[in-house]
């Protein structure tokens, strides 16, 4: 017996991402979780600067385009002014880990009661595919045409592991992916856990999502999914790094 599945009503218009981009799936999962928790009138999505800034016209809940990298800091302000509101900071790897690493870490350090969702596609997608902190060793980008040299640029950053090990009081930390049906279903569980943790006042929650970027990787959408499932998933293990504690 087939189960009916409807696109959430808060997603009215189509978003104009590239074909095969993973952002569309993440946005839909967030909308599904908001709808299931009946928080449509009581949530703010705080969008950083990146390709995903294109989603703001399509998501019909309160939303805000924050300064580049400052999503976690601005979400802190929203949450402190409206403690009962579901505050989501939606960022990318360049936004949260490169330009805004100070704000991202500080929000976790203060154990601010917000949810940060970062989408990691291993480059700066919006500006044309430059090398970011999460670019894989040897990956060719427009600013590393011979492949990333980790001798001089360091190894890719593992932000969720860093938060989970440095700040053990945070509520929930996990990494998911959008490249297999099972992963998408798991990711929805992670996002729901994070939202529930926030609504129960348990503290900071962070979800990283591995997402393909077919345009900047120079691959077809299907090839880019294979790359995430192979090389990228091997370096960035999926799963939960900090589980919620029963209160």
């Amino acid at each position, binding site marked *: 017996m*087939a189960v009916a*599945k*409807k696109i959430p009503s808060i997603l009215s218009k*189509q978003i104009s*991402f590239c074909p*095969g981009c993973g952002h*569309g799936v993440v946005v839909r999962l967030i909308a599904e979780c908001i709808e299931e928790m009946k928080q449509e009138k009581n949530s703010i999505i705080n969008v950083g600067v990146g390709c995903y800034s294109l989603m703001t016209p399509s998501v019909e809940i309160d939303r805000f385009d924050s300064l580049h990298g400052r999503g976690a800091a601005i979400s802190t302000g929203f949450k402190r002014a409206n403690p009962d509101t579901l505050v989501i900071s939606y960022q990318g790897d360049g936004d949260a880990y490169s330009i805004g690493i100070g704000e991202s870490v500080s929000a976790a350090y203060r154990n601010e009661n917000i949810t940060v969702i970062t989408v990691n596609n291993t480059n700066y997608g919006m500006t044309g595919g430059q090398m970011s902190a999460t670019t894989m060793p040897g990956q060719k980008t427009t600013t590393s045409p011979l492949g990333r040299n980790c001798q001089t640029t360091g190894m890719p950053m593992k932000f969720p592991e860093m938060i989970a090990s440095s700040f053990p009081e945070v509520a929930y930390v996990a990494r998911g992916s959008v490249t297999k*049906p099972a992963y998408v*279903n798991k990711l929805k569980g992670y996002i729901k856990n994070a939202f529930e943790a926030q609504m129960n006042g348990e503290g900071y929650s962070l979800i990283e999502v591995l997402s393909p970027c077919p345009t900047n990787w120079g691959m*077809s959408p299907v090839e880019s999914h294979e790359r995430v499932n192979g090389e990228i998933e091997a370096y960035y293990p999926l799963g939960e790094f900090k589980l919620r504690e029963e209160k």
Partner: protein
Amino acid sequence: MKVIVNDERCKQCGICAVNCPKKAISFSDVINMKGYQPAVVDDALCIGCGICYTMCPDWVFEITGE
């Protein structure tokens, strides 16, 4: 009909077709407003599992539940 296809949203990325367990998804010959050939679901093969809904990044598919 088990699946509604909003073909104006489709960008022909092919992720639905690769993940469909029954290989029921192909691409139309008709070009949509964006210039892509949208996905078409073969109703005879479709089992209404919803994997196309789960994987589609452009919100093309809706499962009716029939």
